[in-house]
């Protein structure tokens, strides 16, 4: 098939950036979207031109490295599918495709389609963990977790940290990502001792990183390639409110 690509090119974070148009004549249906970009890049390199820089690694929909906003949608048109798992048979001969980086204030563009998502790591660093040192753990089966809770925790823990939720949100909020981590631990007995402190710390860091506020558009849930449910946002909001009015809030503030 023949495909026309309009791809965002930006030399570095200071560059203004622009779309450039490319034509590919021999796109095969079985190619993944990224393999199609590989073909373009091989062509560009052979012509002595700089290839289009994009993040990717596992190409199995699990590492969270791939991004891309395809025709205005983070990870493209297929539901519950990362860009690396999107295949060209979902497009038609003659299609024009617009490819941009994930756009959000907290995700500055580094080059072309690569953005800086390290804000996510700093949110985890602020509280996305259970404070247990190696060696402290009790016998595994001494902690019982009702199956329903384990399943809920797993539903939330599946987040791959890709940032599509942020890119999809008109406000550039990171609510779904943060809520997924908060909920993962909130459903488990192991997560209870630090439950309040965690949600306060993570939300505070989220705000520091320049993510926007949530005004319940729920575009995040629609864009999420792992189908993380927006109900986790409600859970996080409840936890946050409760924690804000508890003594731990004070303790947390003092520590700061």
């Amino acid at each position, binding site marked *: 098939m023949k495909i026309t690509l309009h791809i965002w090119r930006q030399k*570095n974070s200071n560059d203004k950036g622009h779309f450039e148009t490319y034509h590919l004549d021999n796109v*095969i*249906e*079985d*190619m*993944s979207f990224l*393999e199609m970009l*590989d*073909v373009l*890049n*091989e062509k*560009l*390199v*052979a012509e*002595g*031109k700089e*290839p289009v820089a994009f993040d990717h*690694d*596992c*190409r*199995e929909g*699990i*590492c*969270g*490295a791939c991004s891309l906003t395809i025709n205005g949608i983070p990870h493209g048109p297929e539901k519950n599918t990362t860009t690396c*798992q999107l*295949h060209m048979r979902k497009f038609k001969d003659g299609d024009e495709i617009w490819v941009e980086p994930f756009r959000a204030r907290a995700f500055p563009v*580094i*080059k072309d389609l690569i953005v*800086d*998502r*390290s804000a*996510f*790591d700093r949110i*985890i*660093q*602020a509280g*996305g*963990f*259970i*404070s247990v040192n*190696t*060696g402290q*753990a*009790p016998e*595994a*089966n001494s902690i*019982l*977790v*009702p*199956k329903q809770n*384990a399943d809920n925790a*797993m539903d939330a*823990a599946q987040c791959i*940290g890709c940032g599509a939720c942020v890119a999809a949100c008109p406000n550039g909020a990171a609510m779904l990502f943060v809520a997924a981590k908060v909920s*993962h*631990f909130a459903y*488990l007995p*192991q*997560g209870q001792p630090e439950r309040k402190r965690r949600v306060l710390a993570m939300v505070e860091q989220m705000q520091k990183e320049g993510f926007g506020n949530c005004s319940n558009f729920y575009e995040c849930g629609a864009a999420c390639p792992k189908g993380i449910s927006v109900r986790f946002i409600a859970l996080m909001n409840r936890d946050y409110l409760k924690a804000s009015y508890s003594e731990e809030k004070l303790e947390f503030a003092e520590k700061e």
Partner: protein
Amino acid sequence: MILDGKVPSGRIEEKWDKHRFEMKLVSPANKRKYKILIVGTGLAGASAAASLAELGYNVEVFTYHDSPRRAHSIAAQGGINAAKNYPNDGDSIWRLFYDTVKGGDFRAREANVYRLAQVSNNIIDQCVAQGVPFAREYSGYLANRSFGGAQLSRTFYARGQTGQQLLLGAYSAMMRQVGLKKIILHTRTEMLDLVVIDGVARGIVTRNLLNGKIESFVGDAVVLATGGYSNVFFLSTNAQACNVTATYRAYKRGAFFANPAFTQIHPTCIPQSGEHQSKLTLMSESLRNDGRVWVPKNPGDKRDPRDIPEDERDYFLERMYPSYGNLAPRDIASRAAKRVCDEGRGVGPTGNGVYLDFADAIKRLGKKVIEERYGNLFEMYERITGDNPYETPMRIYPAPHYTMGGLWVDYNLMSNLPGLHVIGEANFSDHGANRLGASALMQGLADGYFILPYTIGHYFATTKLEKVTTDHPEFKKVEKEVEERIKKIMSINGKKTPTQFHRELGKIMWNYCGMSRNEQGLKTALELVPKLREEFWQNLTMVGEEGDLNIVLEKALRVADFLEFAELMLWDALERNESCGGHFREEHQYPDGEAKRDDENFCHVAAWEFTGVGNKPIRHIEPLVFEYVPLTVRSYK
């Protein structure tokens, strides 16, 4: 040279405890005087970084990814083994030890494997405490399943995303220490060389992938947790960026590389669909429980599989291995598929594929049962291939998946270079010539959480380390060499892209050093690889700047190292004149196609010493003694 694995004396059950008692300790106040550099944030690297920082050491961590959570460990699906014996089905540390030694076809060090089985239970405890959402029974207790043909249910899992959940556990423990300022994290930073001063590993030289800056880091110990090298085959189930540079560069600086020819080929992967293919996707092996494997009887039969009548189909596994049929062991099934494809009977656009057909199973059990068992796998298959496996047979083909070989380490996980420790898939340690399913995750976390944190302290407590800084002439020398290598690559003004060279190398390695190997083929490859390498240094095309984010340069540097490393693999495969586990030499097989070991001559680890690019490396050995698991033929009759 005969290498000493430094296995402690005493009965195997007591070795590790005794060793832990005998090792020297570093006092808590002194720990913060030591700096440890860890390269890699997969299960091995992240767990080690967290544990060492918790102990009070200063840790610096490096990864080429944008976030530590992207390490390739994230992709592991099936599960992690432990000897908990929760299902009460007769499991024990001893049995896990025994199975792993035998599964590795008697080419691993017994004492290491025993220790691995011993700490396996602590891993599950630790992960549960971290909040890893393992599968549970309705009672709230942990669930287990059997995996990879094991007769016991000893595998713990988190849906089909066990690696992801374990890695996120280790990552969160590590990030907590980053927040506490006990760990300095360097992302998008690639280690390009090791710095050895007076025979001791003291630091690394890295390239900042964002701006090309070459930098040195000095430490009291260096830990490599940089994963495996399956991508030497170009196409594999590994992530795109997985490469051999860190371990290969350490090898060039004097570390021995052990058993590089021990690679594992997984039988059930989605076949290549064309030249554009960038990776191969693993499909769970469980599919072979109900699918029947076949190819057309006649070469070149291009009909729709559904139009090929029964009597023109060859159910080759059922024919060749009547007792095991479609469930024949991984290596046997893989080699049989290759054989029928080599005969021109392979299916699919490239001819490298065999059918895995569920039509009979659907007829027998109904579509609903099949959907319950394999629904999500069928969905993933359809997403990638566009074919619906309920209606037409799946196509599968074997693919490189895991590398048992790696840098040689002693019982303390230290290489022959003092100060250089190697953990996870990057070392050669516990899997011998073949790894069992669900035991790589176990090994990575065992090394990082429960072994290295003790043994590295012993190293510090018993070693007098000179004070050095990155101003040391050796750092300057290595930095300069790295810069010159980059300049040289940037200046080649040829026609072929790094990916083209990688693909060509992959073909050579797959054809001559893949699923089965023979003397003739290996010798041919030993001529082809150096030629390709020469061409690379003449005919590579480069674009962009070295002082910028440059994906072509990143790739070229990795391919350059693969082109040298491949030769080492070939030497190992040639010199190991026996078949064992994943290393199948056609000259050495039983009439039924089983690998024929030669314990008289090859019951040892081969550890190779670098002697210059293009020169034959020196082969050292570490003899293997089997005191507890008697050497027997690994039979699946």
